[in-house]
């Protein structure tokens, strides 16, 4: 049969854990999820992993393979060198439940905060008429399988737990864009909501989400940028800008939730109408078991400036093009010794 290969799998729960080494048989044509299943069947019967369809359609088996967010069922073993150790760790942005399974309830909370499709008044079921060319724009985003790899890779929350209350993440920017572009959605304020409620201004378009999307949805180009456009038009309007300098924030009717200042805004640090607080308040009311206080793992250093932030544009950065939150000197797959999966500590320890 197959040959033995080296696997390192993170095992543990919300209190502690470590990478564990395995020697496991690998056969031609297998994917990483097959190997995890073989580990379950032969060496570690209680190894926790989420999976369902095993055909890249349900988005359950999200994990980090050699440091890169991937679907286990779509990562073929033939893409690794035979001698290479394959390291599998849980998604880093979400709290670990056990082994490779993380608590992704953050995403379901964010889904609830986004107003649903508003059916057009006076159009009876069966009377909906739309042109194919018009539905196609939204259909691209409805391909999303909710694997949450884009949420996991997004550096606004990956290493910044404090941004989670105010930031919905790429998955929900494409949902907003989908509804904004829906030919019959009755709401007209989707773009404003993306800024005010979802914190789209935090995104500085590094395109990491697009890069990891297994459905190849052009998240940044086709959803985030169009959703930002109108907001930018308004926010860079010189008169509005002047107004924002003359008046105090609490005198303005719109919160200042855009990239250059919003990262600094925290609950109970900004104005009463900051998106962070709005979302935090909504979260509290919604009351699901969300752990906002988990200490984030220390990631690979991103190329931040003296202010501790990524450059806003490539003009002020050292490199042309968007900056990677992993650091621009990182190549994938990463060498085993360079993968620093750090386990978040227990919430009640600090």
């Amino acid at each position: 049969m197959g040959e033995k290969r080296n696997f390192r799998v993170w095992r543990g729960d919300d209190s502690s854990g470590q990478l564990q080494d395995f020697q496991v048989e690998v056969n031609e044509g297998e994917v990483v999820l097959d190997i995890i299943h073989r580990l379950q069947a032969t060496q570690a019967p209680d190894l926790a992993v989420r999976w369902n369809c095993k055909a890249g359609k349900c988005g359950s088996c999200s994990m980090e393979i050699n440091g890169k967010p991937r679907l286990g069922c779509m990562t073929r073993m033939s893409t690794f060198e035979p001698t290479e150790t394959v390291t599998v760790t849980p998604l880093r942005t979400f709290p670990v439940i056990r082994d490779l399974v993380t608590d992704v309830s953050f995403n379901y909370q964010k889904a609830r905060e986004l107003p649903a499709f508003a059916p057009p008044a006076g159009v009876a079921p069966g009377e909906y008429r739309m042109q194919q060319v018009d539905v196609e724009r939204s259909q691209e985003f409805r391909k999303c399988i909710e694997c949450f790899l884009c949420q996991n890779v997004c550096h606004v929350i990956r290493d910044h737990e404090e941004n989670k209350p105010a930031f919905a993440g790429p998955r929900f920017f494409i949902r907003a864009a989908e509804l904004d572009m829906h030919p019959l959605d009755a709401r007209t304020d989707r773009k404003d909501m993306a800024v005010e409620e979802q914190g789209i201004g935090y995104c500085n378009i590094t395109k990491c989400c697009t890069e990891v999307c297994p459905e190849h949805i052009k998240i940044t180009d086709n959803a985030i940028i169009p959703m930002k456009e109108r907001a930018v038009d308004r926010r860079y309007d010189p008169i509005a800008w002047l107004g924002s300098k003359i008046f105090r924030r609490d005198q303005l009717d719109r919160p200042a939730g855009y990239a250059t200042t919003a990262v600094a805004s925290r609950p109970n640090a900004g104005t009463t109408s900051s998106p962070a607080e709005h979302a935090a308040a909504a979260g509290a009311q919604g009351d699901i078991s969300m752990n906002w206080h988990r200490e984030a793992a220390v990631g690979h250093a991103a190329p931040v400036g003296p202010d501790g932030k990524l450059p806003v544009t490539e003009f002020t950065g050292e490199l042309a093009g968007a900056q990677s939150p992993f650091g621009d000197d990182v190549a994938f797959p990463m060498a085993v010794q360079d993968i620093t999966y750090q386990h978040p500590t227990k919430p009640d320890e600090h």
Partner: protein
Amino acid sequence: MTNIERHNYDVVVIGAGGAGLRAAIEARLAGKRTAIISKSLFGKAHTVMAEGGAAAAMGNANAGDNWMVHFRDTMRGGKFLNNFRMAELHATEAPERIWELETYGALFDRTSDGKISQRNFGGHEYPRLAHVGDRTGLELIRTLQQKIVSLQQEDFAATGNYESRLRVFAETTITELFVENGRIAGCFGYYRESGEFVLFETPSIVLATGGVGKSYKVTSNSWEYTGDGHALAMRAGATLINMEFLQFHPTGMVWPPSVKGILVTESVRGDGGVLKNSEGKRFMFDYVPDVFRKQYAETEEEADRWYTDPDNNRRPPELLPRDEVARAINSEVKAGRGTPAGGIYLDIASRRSPEFILKRLPSMHHQFKELADVDITASPMEVGPTCHYVMGGVEVDPDTAAAAVPGLFAAGEVSGGMHGSNRLGGNSLSDLLVFGKRAGEYAARHADEAVKRAKVSAAALNAAVETALAPLGRGEGGENPYTLHSELQQVMNDLVGIIRRRSELEESLGRLADLKERVKKVGVAGGRRYNPGWHLALDLRNMLAVSECTAKAALEREESRGGHTREDFPKMDPNWRRVNLVCSLRDEDVRLERKPLPKMRPELMQLFDRAELSKYLTDEELAEFDELAGKADA
């Protein structure tokens, strides 16, 4: 006594696929406090795998289409074994259910005049399947999921709590239903995440747990398809029908493991692909039955000429009907001429140029390249029969989706009768919408009527806890659940597969009985927190119960019809058409009873012409039909 979380709901829906979500929406719209129990995360259900579309006679693509045509197609597909009333309701209500989805935000592909586009599919007389590319199932799940979120948003606005009237219990498995005084009192299960137990007290339960494919070695189904709803219903005292009917596809991938079970479309054979055994022989020429002899080529040369000149040559035997191809594959493998993985080779690579294959089969090529790094232009595929769908399920009242136990309802793949002996493509997505809605509606109504709600007894609860904890108590010393599972899959694959015969079915019953004893001794290491070994150990007894139903019913039904093929009884028998095989549980054993099929109403019967009916009906039934026709003429 373990600490158990308790909840009280009006309606509990077990299963969060299309049928479950649609039922929950309906129950919540009826004002009932509703819980949805999902074995996986919310939105990950197996419904996402459905590609083709949802069949509904909207008549957008062809104005000639209507519910009567759809009804006829469905009955034909099921070889007239369908519950006629379910097929009727399904055909009449499917269009409304599809249009309703648009008001929830669904975006189907469109016709040029802006209506929902409809595509052709096998067995449907007109283009009928509403679709979104090849991801219709995903669109359905996402739409229903988002509708549920939107209802929760309404509840949040009204009560300040998203979950006040409709709550999703994600990654929660139900292991037991409770019946007190002959009616449903609640259900019991565990959170996968924590391993903690949870009790739901409720007068109405809707089963929407899907199918049973995980009992088979080669299947297109996901791990969740362990027949939970089927087994829960039987243990609660309800009955299952048509369990002998499983839909298999003759050519699913058997190797490599990363694509095991995935269907290889028949057009690979239509475009020149041939079946070869491990000796390299193109074996289909040996399997042409006498009745087809005239239409099929006798030499490879003639067969190969057919692709370019079909008028002057006979078809290659690779294009025989599905069950013939499956039978041939089965025979070759059993004769020891199979591939190491237990299939045979489907070779198009050596017969067509890479350019031709890429042009004709782009998505097949892409799928296998992406998922398995298999290049179908370069090497042959290893294929064999794959288990796809179970027609059988909980016996329900057609109008209310109610099972035999008061308070228990079932919809979707877990219910039986709608599809008869074989399901048409596209009918499952519409099935789950139509009957999901009905189940939710009547479950809500039942909750209204249940004024005095039964309490779950402490003894029943204790027993459920004990059963759930037993595998952990036995620890590593017990039988390994993964081993037992793979042995069960092997038995079902080898002995109760696509082609069945008496001796093998009898053997399977013995093997299943052994396995049943061993499953009682299953043990797992580790704790209760997200322990897949433990989860599998608890699923095993469900898989065994439904496997026993399938094996027993398959042995009993001495004919071949739809998804049940008996090598020793190759013909369809009109007398068997009048019989449903009903499974129930007595103590731990499956009991089988024969029950007459409900009789189709005359006006529905008259939608068919006599020549067609004569293929299915007994002489006695035909005489009745003639009498009716005579009266109509008079």
